[in-house]
């Protein structure tokens, strides 16, 4: 494990206030999800999941076809599609356009994809002001932090934290009432919306048959971002494409429920092309940036490419006993929780944080709640195997490798296995069968030491089962 990963986990676990904040917030989202998909409310929930999985599978297996269809339909509506292979290409495109149009101010609605490519930092580096308009994202931008959670980015911030951030950065009086805090942000952000030259959004779905970008949100800021400025740029991963508008009937039923327990988000926007003659609202220019950034690397593997089915609902985070302890910032990249643990190694390479796929008890809760049925535990297991295969001679854990060779040898030689068991039992302290709390230094090493750091250890019994069985 990298020292940084280890340290972040330790710091998060040691912070009692943070532990409570994460556990409470995720617990609330988790409960609401369960209520909203209960058989009495959504009887065909399991059928919807199966259907969503089938549509995603079909879309990913025919990605080239649907991306071309999407592009044709966007262009038929006078929009433009831009393919970008990485972060630099996205930034170059936005900066180039901003320069041509003499743009200075960008407003942004929530988008994990732009987080992936550090878009704000890249734009600001070149003198553009880029303002997040989702309340949670705005708070984090002021605090110079990354999103803590895919759906609830400021989940770890209490109202008192927000009061402190606002006072420090916006120079407003200390305000701890949430509604009043919202009003402060609203006042600042309305001015930005009116003055912005470019609006950048993400996309929840790209609909191939209609060339539409679909965005779901609760605050209305995405609708303002995409319609008030003269230019709208939607940045989306290529995997967001779905074949038909009618497929939304499946996905929209699942997305809000899985994310927040809402039956539907407050706003669902269908954006297709710039403002047409005779229309009052909408941008003059409409661009869809289709980002690869490592996604096409996943396509050859039948199991692992399921990772591209993700609709970013965050349900796996809320239900994950690991995420609920270590939170979002312990994860090595922008995506956290179980989905982060499977896409980070695939997008960034397993060497980015080799221990990430191992940071799971494999309890399977993530796979159970995934609305598109991504088999996350299975992918974690495959990634663990990939990590071991990829380790070079210098990097690998020689002791662990030897230990598992020895394990396989013993477990295929029953007599030696029995002998080893007896030797282990003979070495262990016997204290009338009570559990072990400490061991003397030479024995208190490796996994035993790690176990004893948290829990007592069962003493080896006087006789193994096979010995008892023979003598009964």
């Amino acid at each position, binding site marked *: 494990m990298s020292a940084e990963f280890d340290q972040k986990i330790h710091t998060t676990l040691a912070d009692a206030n943070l532990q409570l904040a994460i556990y409470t917030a995720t617990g609330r989202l988790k409960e609401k999800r369960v209520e909203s998909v209960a058989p009495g409310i959504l009887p065909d929930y399991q059928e919807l999941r199966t259907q969503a999985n089938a549509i995603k599978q079909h879309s990913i297996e025919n990605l080239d076809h649907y991306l071309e269809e999407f592009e044709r339909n966007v262009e038929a509506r006078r929009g433009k599609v831009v393919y970008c292979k990485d972060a630099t290409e996205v930034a170059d495109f936005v900066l180039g356009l901003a320069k041509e149009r003499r743009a200075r101010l960008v407003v942004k609605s929530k988008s994990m994809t732009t987080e992936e490519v550090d878009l704000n930092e890249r734009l600001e580096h070149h003198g553009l002001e880029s303002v997040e308009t989702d309340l949670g994202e705005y708070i984090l931008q002021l605090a110079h932090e990354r999103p803590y959670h895919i759906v609830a980015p400021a989940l770890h911030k209490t109202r008192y934290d927000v009061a402190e951030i606002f006072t420090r950065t916006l120079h407003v009086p200390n305000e701890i009432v949430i509604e009043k805090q919202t009003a402060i942000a609203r006042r600042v952000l309305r001015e930005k919306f009116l003055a912005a030259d470019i609006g950048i959004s993400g996309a929840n779905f790209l609909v191939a048959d209609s060339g539409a970008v679909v965005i779901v949100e609760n605050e209305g800021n995405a609708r303002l971002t995409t319609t008030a400025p003269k230019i709208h740029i939607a940045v989306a991963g290529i995997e967001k494409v779905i074949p038909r508008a009618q497929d939304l009937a499946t996905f929209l039923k699942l997305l809000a429920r899985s994310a927040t327990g809402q039956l539907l988000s407050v706003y669902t926007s269908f954006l297709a092309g710039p403002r047409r003659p005779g229309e009052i609202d909408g941008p003059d220019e409409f661009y869809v940036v289709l980002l690869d950034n490592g996604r096409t690397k996943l396509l050859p593997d039948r199991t692992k490419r399921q990772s591209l089915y993700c609709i970013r609902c965050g349900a796996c985070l809320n239900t994950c006993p690991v995420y609920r*302890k270590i939170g979002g910032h312990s994860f090595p990249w922008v995506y956290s929780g179980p989905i982060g643990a499977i896409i980070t190694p695939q997008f960034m390479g397993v060497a980015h944080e080799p221990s990430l796929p191992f940071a799971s*008890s494999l309890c399977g809760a993530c796979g159970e709640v995934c609305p598109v049925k991504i088999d996350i535990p299975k992918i974690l297991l495959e990634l663990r195997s990939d990590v071991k295969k990829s380790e070079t001679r210098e990097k690998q854990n020689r002791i662990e490798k030897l230990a*598992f060779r020895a394990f396989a040898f013993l*477990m*295929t030689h*029953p007599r030696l296995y029995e002998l080893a068991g007896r030797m282990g039992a003979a070495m262990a302290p016997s204290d009338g069968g009570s*559990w072990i709390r400490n061991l003397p230094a030479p024995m208190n090493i490796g996994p035993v030491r*790690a176990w004893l750091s948290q829990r007592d250890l069962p003493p080896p019994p006087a006789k193994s089962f096979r010995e008892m*069985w023979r003598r009964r």
Partner: protein
Amino acid sequence: MGKRVSLFVTCIVDQLFPKVGMAMAGVLERLGYQVDFPENQTCCGQPAFNSGYRGEARLVARHFLDTFESCETIVVPSGSCTAMVTHHFAELFAKDQAALARVHALEKRVWEFATFLTEVAGVEDVGARLEEVVTFHDGCHGLRELGIRDAPRRLLACVRGLELREIEPAEECCGFGGTFAVKFAELSGAMARTKIEAIERTGARTVVSLDPSCLMQIQGALLRAGSSVRTMHLAEVLASR
């Protein structure tokens, strides 16, 4: 002479909790089964599989196949080890048609203990008696990979003198996770403490589970926390009279 069943007691029961194996054998014999213990058995290979060492896991899985292939019915006191055989052996041998055929022939005959009792033996009341307030911990692999939810509860409901109280929130991992428990010890320990707080809120004096490894984690954490709550495997509860 009754029907024959073979025990796969798992390495953890063999080496650390032999009484669980004896209790399971006792319950099966009481129900009229002729119980045998194939001496060549060791482990299902899950520790290697979950740690990314598929080659090593495959060797151990092949040994399991060799050992149990001739057995008609195999009963296992663990949901997790059962799931390794019935759900993951096939993944290990995906590219080996001959071994895969052996896996498919065997996996149907491998049963987790509680499910074996309710589904195969067709019993819920095994004649047990235990004056105790207990709670039940669902092991994740039994719960989510094998879909075991009702069987142990139906069996516990028939134990005379026993009162079952559910954990709230139910279905949350105890934090064991095999090598995870030592690779991420601090995190695993924190998960265990959340679990035992939920257990203590039930007011039960004993935690029952199908999985010896979850019980090792929970018992270890209970003792470390100075709690007087104790753990019992379902087989030990059902063997009580």
